């Protein structure tokens, strides 16, 4: 099990959080059908670093952004949604 640092509550067990998916998909402003299809269905699904939304469901219930490595589960940092996350050197996919 890994631990996630909630920006408001501090370091807590991952069990307290609910995964909410890719943080970089954004709802399109206009009604373009292709853009909406991309937003609803298509994902990069990388096996390296991934920005994602979690909700602290068993805590403050707020959403947070997490930069996590999908293969090692290492967490580079967390932030309030929309706020900058720490830079990571290895942005490439793992073998």
């Amino acid at each position, binding site marked *: 099990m890994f631990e996630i640092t909630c920006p408001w509550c501090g370091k807590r067990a991952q069990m307290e959080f609910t995964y909410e998916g890719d943080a970089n998909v954004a709802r399109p402003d206009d009604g373009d059908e292709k853009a909406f299809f991309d937003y609803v269905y298509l994902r990069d699904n990388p096996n390296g670093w991934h920005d*994602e939304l979690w909700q602290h469901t068993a805590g403050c219930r707020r959403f947070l952004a997490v930069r996590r490595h999908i293969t090692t589960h290492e967490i580079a940092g967390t932030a309030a949604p929309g706020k900058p996350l720490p830079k990571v050197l290895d942005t490439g996919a793992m073998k």
Partner: protein
Amino acid sequence: MSKIIFINAFPPPQTLFKVTQLLEAVVTRYSIFSLARNALTGHKNWTEVWRSPDPKPHYDVIIVGGGGHGLATAYYLAKEHGITNVAVIEKGWLGGGNTGRNTTIVRSNYRLEGNAHFYELSLKLWEGMSQDLNYNVMFSQRGVINLAHNDGAIDAAQRRGNAMRFNGIDSQWLTPAEIKQRVPLLDLTGGGRFPVLGGLIQQRGGTARHDAVAWGYARGADALGVDIIQNCEVTGFVFDGERISGVETTRGRIDAGKVGIAVAGHTSKVAEMAGLRLPIESHVLQAMVSEPVKPCLDTVITSGSGHMYISQSDKGELVFGGDLDFYNSYAQRGNFPRLEQVVQNILTLFPAFSRLRLMRSWGGIMDMTMDGSPIISKTPIPNFYINGGWCYGGFKATPGSGYVFAHTIAQDRPHPTNEALSLNRFETGAVLDEVGVGPFPKLH
């Protein structure tokens, strides 16, 4: 069309001569007689089960991924479509991915038409597989029971059971007493929290020996002329204009007329090399086995309320699993909270298992699609075909998946049974959402 014909080990020389003249390949037919003959010579004269050839510079079809699905595809390409200049390229060893990591359950108890007919085709192929391949896959139709613990679950299960019957698939409702008679160790009170109010059984469902499926298809495909190339990773695709014309591998470039990928768990990564972005997230699913015990569970029990599924292997181990870890992962291992939750689910319904020691647990990577159903399809790229998105359920689909994927590749159009499993169904809105939760992969 080439045919696969087996001969007994050590036949009279004149027979061998005639047979080799007629056939492309000759393999030892497995039988009680070949077993007895080889026992007399200390089992030192068995021939290799498949060759390990060097890759040729060109194949008519290259299948990326040497799991059950890829090997079945190659087998049916050769057997049903006469395409034998085929290579299966595998980065590790045969069946080392999800083929070797599942809980071996086979069933076709689906509600939606697009899924039901596909999985039923697959189940029918399972029923003849050991004979067809002359390889014992230990398919055991011991029944699969879905328990219902509340009124809503009863309604949903009976509705699904009726839908199955309309589609010509067997299903039967069992009362709690009937379930207790079949599964004496099941606690019908469910610890007070999950009482067993009934269950839907598909008697033709059951379990099979997972590795044997990969090995049996590998042997069958090899005998028909398919080259199986292990320890060879595809690192990129070669394009000729818009169409794919080959693959780059760790053993060099190999040209191909057509390329199909069957790499579930990593479909997004391989498709990305071809420039495709898919409606898939990768998640880890754990499974585990107890220490082996004497026969105590002769059917498959599943429960949707806490989500668990359990059966007993022929070695005596209880094999079980439950939900995903519920966050994207490419790590082929899971975390303890989920393992604990799955075990709690099992013990709620089978308190007698609480004294068993857990022997092993492991994880496999699931392609979780946006509607929970698989993708066997042409793609926007000419000569490039995708088989993936198997979510929790790829193992049972192995033969049907290979059968219709081979058709899709050979004919460049889907088999009627996988028309509904197209990649473009997300764009057209014709999604196959069996449980109706929407585009949230972890919830399927």
